[in-house]
């Protein structure tokens, strides 16, 4: 190792960060080179200069708002501006002074030592783990409880849905059967005469209509009227209008009603004819039928 190489490494020889082989080389060179030992002395001088800080008594005086003794105030201020270590230490001294001046400022307990800290961290980690395990267990229990509470309700709903689905499927099957019948020729369609109720009063006025077959009702109107416009309404047992048609002409075309298969559900119905006179509907004949 030559002098230049040794001298360049002197600061790190002093701070002890040179690797072993490098350190031994530099030290070996120093033992034989007086000029480099002189450079080592200068490096120590530089170390003292660069390691210079404001005296602690100066920092404390400044913390208490007093001028620093033995040191130029402007120089001290400049040093504080460029030395983060002194600035931090001054802040510590100021904080301590604030604690003296105001007893209301609370201080936390003294930080535990490293060993105690390890123990504390161990307990803290164990407590966190236990808390986490408890949380997982609780959430599992909670979900299980919810599931046990919900299952009966879900099963009931599922049963209802299955019933509804069976009904719909039966309805679809019935509709398909009816459609199949409509596409086929109708043989021996019943054509009963239907007399108004007032004429058949006292007798069984109901005309039985099979629910699973098409039927044509031949109306036998009895009322004489000059009105040419008729309204027809089909009412169920509760009087609710199931079907109606207005503005029909009373001529040969209005003689028959044909109910296709499945049009009417089993039950009693009333066919109500009415005329329109002076713009107002006037009830006329009623025909009672029963679908079964």
């Amino acid at each position, binding site marked *: 190792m*030559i002098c*230049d190489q040794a001298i*360049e*490494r002197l600061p790190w*020889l002093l701070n002890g960060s040179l690797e072993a082989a490098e350190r031994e080389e530099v030290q070996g060179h120093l033992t034989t080179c007086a000029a480099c030992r002189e450079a080592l002395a200068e490096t*120590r001088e*530089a170390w003292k200069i660069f390691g210079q800080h404001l005296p602690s008594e100066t920092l404390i005086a400044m913390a208490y708002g007093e001028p620093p003794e033995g040191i130029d105030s402007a120089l001290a201020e400049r040093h504080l501006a460029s030395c983060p270590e002194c600035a931090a230490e001054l802040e*510590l001294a100021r904080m301590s*002074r604030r604690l*003296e001046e105001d007893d209301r400022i609370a201080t936390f307990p003294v930080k535990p030592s490293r060993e105690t800290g390890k123990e504390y961290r161990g307990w803290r980690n164990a407590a966190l783990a236990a808390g986490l395990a408890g949380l997982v267990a609780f959430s599992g229990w909670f979900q299980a409880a919810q599931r046990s509470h919900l299952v009966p309700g879900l099963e009931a709903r599922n049963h209802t849905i299955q019933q509804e689905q069976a009904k719909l499927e039966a309805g679809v099957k019935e509709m398909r059967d009816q459609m199949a019948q409509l596409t086929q020729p109708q043989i021996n369609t019943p054509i009963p005469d239907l007399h108004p109720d007032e004429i058949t009063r006292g007798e069984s006025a109901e005309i039985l209509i099979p629910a699973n077959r098409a039927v044509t009702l031949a109306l036998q109107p009895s009322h004489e009227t000059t009105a040419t416009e008729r309204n027809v309404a089909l009412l169920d047992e509760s009087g609710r209008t199931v079907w109606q048609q207005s503005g029909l002409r009373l001529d040969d075309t209005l003689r028959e009603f044909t109910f296709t298969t499945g049009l009417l559900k089993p039950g009693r119905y009333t066919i109500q004819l009415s005329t329109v006179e002076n713009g107002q509907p006037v009830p006329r004949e009623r025909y009672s039928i029963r679908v079964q």
Partner: protein
Amino acid sequence: MGTDDREMVALFLQGDTEAVGTVDGWISRAAWPYQRRLADHWDDVLQDVRLEVTRLLGQGKFRGESSLRTYLWRVVSHTCLDQIRALKWKWVDLEEVDQPGSGPESVPASSARQEDKDLLLRVLDRVPPDCREMWRMIVAGLSYREMGLRLSVAEGTLRVRVLRCRERAVAARRELLGGPPGNGRNNGVKNSPKRSERANTDDM
């Protein structure tokens, strides 16, 4: 000195439980801001502070220029700051290298204890900030590889820059002491062409 403070000092030195408890409470509170910096040394430092307070009060150092509470507060801060500084990095002893006449003990003129701190601070004030920054890292114990990474500078360049900073600091000190400033380089070592070239290139 107020009567109360005088009584407090007397009771403390007699070991009065209440007085000792009061003073100890003041010490703990005054030292509280320093505990994080002192870390594992905290308990030892607190004990040192108690001993120092007992010594000062026993020797009658407290003259009543301020209240006893303020006096103790400053003593605690002083002791804690000194302890923090005592924990900082120190240079390595090189007994095998330091021959009689060349070691740190043999240069009393340059000892910080005997030199005017004001002078050293003035020298430091003349050194460029980047020099102070680099040497702050050295004093903190960083290797030149670590410094090179932090400063994004090649290791060789960094070593030359640090050398230049050292020369500037030593030259500034000589200048302030009234001697010839020179270039701060030791006279026994000639610059090799290679070094001069690198130094000129990396000069700041």
